[in-house]
């Protein structure tokens, strides 16, 4: 089946967007599809962004009808977000963060957390599926002649920091939505593709072989870093993604909440107590006050007014203000402090017993997270083994937070300070625009690139993957047996390739689920499949959710022990596949797929 369009979908933590390009056009250009959604009770309108919120109607409410479904009892988009502020237990927010969090079973119905009994809770995977399904319905409604998204080639973006399991689950949601031709793309790469698309052929005069681009992507809920090199490739310029950062749950929403807290504190000191609704309204008011202060240097303060909740607007409203010095102190110095390159984020020890909740970053200083990323991939001494460690020469910004010039300036000044100290040249800024829609646009452009219409960023997998093997030793009370890490997938595997078969055997009991500890490393770039690490430096290996293998008893007796080898491959979609291959197969090519995203054990947080 040949598709008419390539469709890029940015499935974001706080917003989603869809862009598309016609494949048969001689000079295809990328357009953004406005997404029809409920914006008020019974009111449907088209918006460029679909807020990533899902609301479940209560029995007291009429159906949340859409033009294509009169009976629907849930909604996604703008109304879901605003209803969520009024009835928070009935709404799912940040589903994408849950999708990448191994602390819960991501296929089990557990969202919204703390929902009342009348709601049938759904899983993070199903929530993502419902967002994609809505995009599909909106596409069908807007372009009735073009079928639906299952007939198009879909490029779905994921954070570069998503591990193999979270990528798998994203694809699972896409397949459930019927997208048969789906490919994954890392968001920072999508941002660079959008920049290339916008600049046309002129981009080659902005970037030269030897350039290293640092992509800083700060969205509503997450912060993502990548390094992409411009390299000489058979006489012409090519791009290669060389490093990605850790998954950092820190974004614009945290900033608005921090400012709301500051203003709320001041109001409390004046004896004005706020209820939950007013606190929500305060975060909202602080966001727009912040945007005004950041965009107009002549303003010293902006009034923040919380309207009374009743129909009498005057008399009951609470008036506070957000001052420039507060924005500078809490936003600039709190989230973007000018720190030294050696100033790494504080790591807070996890409490032994924590409530179920997302693992938000414990240090809010984004510049420190950037310092940690660069310390690993750009400023490391060559002797430490991090191959090809050199500083960035250019920077590309993405994400709504970085619309504020003062924040971009702080990031670039801090970075250039570090570069100067090391005697490196300053990095220049690649001019971007429309930081909200760039990822979706870039994803659609990548769809064209896959058809040979543009330059492809090479990169492969951003991590090497390891299976934990307990070393055989006598049991000692109170001591955990040491764990070796067996590399099964080397760094930088390209789509459609297979890793070498490691010689080591693992033993699996037939008919019983066997779980393995699973690790990823974004810094160990030269371990081939089959190499075994007996020790590693702190932070070098990151423990991921456990993986699981169940050998069906077909042909074997339950309880038998079978020796297997583990082999990794990267699918055409861009997901990692791990298979166990029997050492003495009963039938030709006997292999079993290993489940990558099972529930994270509570004791395994390294």
């Amino acid at each position, binding site marked *: 089946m040949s598709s008419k369009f390539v469709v890029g979908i940015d499935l974001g933590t706080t917003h989603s967007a869809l862009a598309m390009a016609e494949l048969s056009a001689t000079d295809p250009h990328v357009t953004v599809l406005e997404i029809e959604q409920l914006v*008020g*009770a019974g*009111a449907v*309108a*088209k918006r460029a962004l679909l807020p990533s919120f899902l609301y479940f109607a209560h029995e007291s409410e009429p159906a949340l009808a859409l033009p294509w479904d009169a009976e629907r009892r849930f909604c996604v988009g703008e109304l879901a977000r605003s209803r969520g502020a009024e009835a928070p237990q009935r709404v799912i927010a940040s589903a994408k963060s849950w999708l990448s969090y191994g602390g819960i079973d991501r296929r089990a119905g557990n969202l919204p957390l703390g929902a009342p009994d009348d709601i049938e809770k759904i899983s993070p995977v199903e929530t993502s599926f419902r967002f994609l399904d809505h995009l599909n319905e909106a596409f069908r409604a807007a372009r009735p002649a073009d079928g639906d998204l299952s007939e198009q080639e879909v490029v779905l973006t994921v954070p570069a920091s998503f591990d193999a399991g979270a990528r798998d689950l994203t694809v699972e949601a896409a397949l459930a939505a019927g997208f048969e031709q789906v490919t994954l793309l890392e968001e920072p790469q999508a941002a660079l593709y959008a920049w290339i698309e916008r600049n046309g052929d002129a981009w080659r005069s902005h970037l030269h072989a030897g350039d290293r681009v640092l992509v800083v992507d700060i969205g509503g809920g997450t912060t993502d870093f990548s390094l992409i090199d411009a390299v000489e490739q058979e006489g012409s310029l090519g791009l290669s993604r060389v490093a990605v950062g850790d998954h950092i749950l820190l974004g614009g929403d945290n900033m608005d909440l921090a400012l709301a807290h500051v203003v709320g504190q001041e109001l409390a000191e004046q004896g004005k107590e706020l209820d939950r609704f007013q606190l929500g309204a305060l975060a909202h008011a602080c966001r*727009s006050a912040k945007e005004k202060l950041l965009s107009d240097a002549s303003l010293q303060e902006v009034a923040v007014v919380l309207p009374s909740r009743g129909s*009498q*607007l*005057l008399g009951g409203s609470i008036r506070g203000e957000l001052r420039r010095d507060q924005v500078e102190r809490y936003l600039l110095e709190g989230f973007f402090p000018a720190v030294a390159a050696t100033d790494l984020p504080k790591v807070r020890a996890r409490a032994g017993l924590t409530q179920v909740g997302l693992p938000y970053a414990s240090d809010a200083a984004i510049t420190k997270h950037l310092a940690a990323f660069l310390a690993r991939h750009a400023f490391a001494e060559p002797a430490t083994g991090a191959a090809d460690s050199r500083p960035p020469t250019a920077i590309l910004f993405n994400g709504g937070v970085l619309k504020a010039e003062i924040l971009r300036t702080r990031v670039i000044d801090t970075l250039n300070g570090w570069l100067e100290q090391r005697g490196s040249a300053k990095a220049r800024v690649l001019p971007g625009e429309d930081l909200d829609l760039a990822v979706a646009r870039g994803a659609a452009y990548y769809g064209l690139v896959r058809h040979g219409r543009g330059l492809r960023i090479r990169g492969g997998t951003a991590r090497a993957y390891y299976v934990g093997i307990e070393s055989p030793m006598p049991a000692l009370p109170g001591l955990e047996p040491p764990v070796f890490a067996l590399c099964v997938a080397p760094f930088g595997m390209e789509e459609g390739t297979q890793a070498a078969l490691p010689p080591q055997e693992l033993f699996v009991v037939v008919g019983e689920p066997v779980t393995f500890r699973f690790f990823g490393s974004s810094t160990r770039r030269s371990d081939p499949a089959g190499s075994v690490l007996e020790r590693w430096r702190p932070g070098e290996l990151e423990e991921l959710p456990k993986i699981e293998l169940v050998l069906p008893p077909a042909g074997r007796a339950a309880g038998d022990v079978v020796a297997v080898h583990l082999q990794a491959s990267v699918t055409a979609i861009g997901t990692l596949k791990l298979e166990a291959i029997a050492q003495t197969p009963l039938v030709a090519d006997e292999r079993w797929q290993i489940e990558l995203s099972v529930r994270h054990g509570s004791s395994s947080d390294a």
Partner: protein
Amino acid sequence: MTVTSLPLLSRIWLSWLTTFRILFDGRFAAQVLALRAGQVSDDSSAPPALPITPADSARAHSRPPAADAALQLLALLQREGRFLDFVQQDVAAFPDAEIGAAARVVHEGCRRAIRAHARVVSVRTEAEGAPLTLERASEDVKLVGNVAGSAPFRGVLRHRGWRVEELKLPTMVGEHDLTLVAPAELELS
């Protein structure tokens, strides 16, 4: 504006009608001239260039206001900017500072609502207070002050005027009572 072809009888009727109107209505004649020269834009926001129903020439065109759209707009302004709360309240007893604080809420919200659903532009782009010469009378510009004489009209631009170039109100889906521009709220604890 969709252009459809008229049957022969209507065309005969129309040509008889327009002959006299071209003779006695200079503005109408100018519009017909523009139509012949192909200058009429396809823009649906432009006023219709030719009245094609005979009744129009006899009496002023009148139509009932579109209540649904007006109710929707009121609901929008209330939801985003507490518009009805503000105008329904008696503000006489409150100090200016408090009215000012409320005005910020109303201003910011209503502005957001208007910007999201309409494209509003100035009718004239010249500076207010500057002298302006109008070559011919037009609905775009209302003459005030010593209104007499004939074109060209010389005066001072007092107000630039506003035109809604595009209005995109949400589509209504399902059974909803549009007169309920803001339901009452009951908080459960």
